[in-house]
């Protein structure tokens, strides 16, 4: 037999279920002593709730002051028994909330920066001097420095490689109609 959850039973005890759920729960309770007992316990607990309002008001400010005093006392006691000379912080630099906030701020900065920066040119990566074709051009590269001659928009690009360390591209310039030959050199 599948029993209703504790939440459903508690809501049923307070008469807070919808009509369909209430009908289904009542139908289950009719044949289940265990759940009936649970509902009874919830009902009794509800009856005690109004009495909680009669508890005298707690002096929260005084309690907080006592807690702060106790914390200072504990820190002072810890300082006395501390073996190392490292100074203690009053509080950790990064609590969970602070770290989350800091990371979120930095993330926002990064996203903004990347948006301002725009798409990066397609540069190949290598530390050795080399020449190679890229998506829309030819390029010589050495470390983080690159020199590229581009043929954006050109179709039918023919590449020519010179074993002495050159790479060339030949295409018809879509704007001028001129056959154009570019070449880059390994330095």
């Amino acid at each position, binding site marked *: 037999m599948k029993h209703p959850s504790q939440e459903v039973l508690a809501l049923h005890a307070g008469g807070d279920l919808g009509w369909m759920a209430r009908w289904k729960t009542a139908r289950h309770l009719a044949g289940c002593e265990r759940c009936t007992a649970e509902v009874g316990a919830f009902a009794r607990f509800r009856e005690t709730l109004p009495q909680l309002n009669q508890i005298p008001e707690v002096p929260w400010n005084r309690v907080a002051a006592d807690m702060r005093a106790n914390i200072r006392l504990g820190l002072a006691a810890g300082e006395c028994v501390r073996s190392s000379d490292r100074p203690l912080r009053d509080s950790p630099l990064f609590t969970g909330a602070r770290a989350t906030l800091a990371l979120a701020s930095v993330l926002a900065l*990064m996203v903004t920066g990347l948006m301002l920066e725009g798409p990066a040119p397609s540069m190949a990566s290598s530390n050795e001097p080399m020449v190679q074709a890229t998506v829309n051009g030819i*390029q010589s590269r050495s470390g983080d420095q690159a020199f590229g001659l581009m043929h954006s928009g050109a179709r039918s690009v023919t590449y020519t490689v010179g074993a002495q360390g050159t790479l060339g591209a030949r295409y018809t310039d879509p704007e001028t109609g*001129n056959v154009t*030959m570019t070449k880059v050199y390994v330095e």
Partner: protein
Amino acid sequence: MWNNVKALTAAIVFLGATSLLAQDAAIPPGAVNINLPDNSPLALKSFTMADSRATARGAALALDLHMSATLVNNSPRRIHGVTLRVVAQEVTLGGKGSVTYPSLNVGPGETFQVRIDMQLMRPSQVTGGPLVQVDLDGVLFQDLSFFGPDRLNSRRTMTACEKEAQRDREHFKRILAQAGRTGLQREMLESMARQSEVSQLAVTVKRTGRAVTSAAIAPEHDAEFAFLEFPDSPVKPMNGSARISGNEARTPRIEVRNRSNRPVKYVEMGWIVSDPSGKQYMAGSLPSADTDLILPPGQSARLLQETTLSFSAKGQPVNVSKMVGFVNQVEFADGNIWVPNRQNLDNALLLKVLPPSAEEQRLTDIYRKRGGLDALVAELSKF
């Protein structure tokens, strides 16, 4: 745990600060220096750098340059080719390139437009001087005379292009004369079909020795070149080899003999590779060193380059199984240049792997995009 959090936080703060520092700024035209000699046959009529931007990326500067210039022919001769030398702060970066415009036909007083698109990545702390220097390296005239400092051997490059252009224009004119417009149209369609079927390799060239890549872990061995021979070639390839390791070929060398009666000062071999499945690609060219070759008639010399070429196609390494070489260009000591004729190129292997000449590409572009057969016939009649 605490240390990890601190390290992570520090890294993120650094990255965030770097990104925040990224600034995008327009590059003024003064950042590019265009240098045309006083006695240059070309003059600068206008120059723009629209949409050129510099972006700071931490300690580096990314430059995106779009240069457009209009040049005017101030000489009394027709210009058939121009090469510009492009250098990005030579002292600090060393980036060097060239932009060549072959197949021009610019009469005296006429203008033409050139475009140079560049991307540079360089240290941001470099200061002083123009970002980019554009120099005139050479101008080739209709009569194959030349003007310019020729620091990039643009005379040879443009003369070879012009010889190929003359060869191909003559070929198409002959077709037109013999087979009419229908024949010329058929030839254009066949050329376009060949161009679309040529498979290209992505090749990386390094000056250093063997690269350390996953494909290069394969054991290295010597592979011999086979040769396609052209009967009229002034140079005969004798033998050759390269060190092969997976998709890398290192230190290619070919021995050639001058069988002409004139001294030769430059030889360039075409280089075709086959993968294990037999698919063939044009891999590149193997030129002789620019300065040290003077090959008298009957003598032999070795073309050798201390470089490593890595081959790939569609992002996958292409392992080298076989290699074929052929003579692609020869320059005699007197400056004359030999290029293969159309009969030489009418070879099943070369038709499959060799891209068309710059002129054939230009003529097919005219046929395809700029007015069809009428425009093509009109263009051929200009020469």
